[in-house]
């Protein structure tokens, strides 16, 4: 589904990604862990071209997204993204936040979009907030709306960029629960996270990133119980 070959990214003269190689299968849930500054968010943001990679190859669903003239907007419709800070649109109601993109893309009529949005909002447990504005919601509710907003475009892949890092501790669980459901239903997911419990329980594979490369990859058991690299052991001893 996603194939990344020798991906490099520079910010000015600073090399943030130093040759990433990885493969994500359809239906797989991959968690990316690592210290801050290790390049995990940048890597994730390269996958829907919110950051432009400096060199390398990324193939998504058979389409090389590094080619010139690739339809970026088309790509982003297939690859949903959930942000650390939600990025809900404060001037629109919850319902309008979810229906805006499907209507603008002419994927659905406003009535169909509204019906689908209500289904999604009910599924993530905030159906009763449809007519409220983002400012009236708690952090956990906002993030669940953001997930519903991405799902409204029926994406093939979902990217999560530290989705629970900006939440109060008591709200982390409700967001992770929604993501767990999504993984169970077979959504292809790439999740940058500091929630080791979630990674261990839900991930099919865990990637440990350090210094701009994937230092170690494997099943949660391999990474958490039998890490090979010293750097991985050191990181895990600090966070577990």
């Amino acid at each position, binding site marked *: 589904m996603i194939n990344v070959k020798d991906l490099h990214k520079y910010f000015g003269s600073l090399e943030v990604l130093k040759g990433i190689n990885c493969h994500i299968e359809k239906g797989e849930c991959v968690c990316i862990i690592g210290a801050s500054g290790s390049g995990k968010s940048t890597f994730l943001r390269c996958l829907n071209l919110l950051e432009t990679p400096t060199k390398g190859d990324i193939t998504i669903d058979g389409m090389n997204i590094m080619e010139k003239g690739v339809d970026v907007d088309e790509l982003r419709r297939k690859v949903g993204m959930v942000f650390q*800070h939600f*990025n809900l649109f404060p001037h629109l109601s919850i319902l309008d936040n979810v229906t805006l993109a499907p209507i603008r893309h002419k994927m659905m009529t406003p009535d169909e979009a509204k019906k689908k949005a209500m289904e999604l909002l009910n599924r993530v447990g905030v159906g009763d907030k449809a007519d409220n504005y983002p400012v009236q919601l708690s952090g956990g509710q906002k993030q669940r709306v953001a997930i519903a907003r991405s799902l409204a475009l029926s994406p093939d892949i979902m990217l999560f960029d530290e989705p629970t890092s900006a939440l109060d501790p008591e709200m982390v669980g409700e967001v992770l629960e929604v993501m767990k459901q999504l993984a169970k239903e077979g959504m292809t997911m790439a999740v940058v996270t500091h929630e080791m419990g979630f990674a261990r329980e839900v991930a099919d594979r865990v990637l440990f990133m350090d210094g701009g490369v994937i230092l170690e990859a494997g099943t949660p058991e391999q990474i958490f119980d039998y890490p090979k690299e010293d750097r991985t052991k050191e990181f895990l001893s600090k966070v577990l």
Partner: protein
Amino acid sequence: MLDSYYRAFIAEQRYLMYLDGLKMTLLVSLLAIILGVALGTILALMRMTAERRGKSTLLSKIAYVYIDIIRGTPTVTQLLIMYFVVLKGVDGLIVGTVTFGLNSAAYVAEIIRAGILAVDHGQMEGGRSLGLSYGQTMKDIILPQAVKNILPALGNEFIVLIKETAILGYVSIVDLTKVADFVTSRTYEAFAPLIGTAIIYYLVVKVLTLVLGVVERRLRQSDKR
């Protein structure tokens, strides 16, 4: 005392002159702010191309030079250049409108640009991540939020503009201040016409300030819980 006010405003139906002057002042201000907002929006979008590309572009440079020159020279000088050089022999209303419109555009451009930049960067990413184009995201997500930042400052610019038009008399365009000047030269009494004129300006600005306050409160309503 009352006598001098009578001579300044009532005698020879002078109040009609003040009304004509006020009409000129308000007409030039209104037309100029319309021109200023239209041109200012274009200038702001030209400058924004640099923000989008991450480096200055030809369009952003042109807009920057224009804004720099307008802000770096006195409005009176600009008015004189328009009246005696660029628009020589053209009707006063047009000279006034064009001068203040071009002048205001430079300030309005910066107000609009600042208003757009004040919207959280995550909003653009949020829109783009849903597959909306740059233009669609601007129109549906950024600008509706930027208006809240822009409108109060824009209202302020309009108020400044109204008062600045008092220099129109420099090139013998008969605005409110010029009328006071006329009357003074007829009655040889400066106090009443000038104070009276000042009060008229004050009242106009006061009414506008009140209207702006109402608009601003309306805009803030969606921020409340």
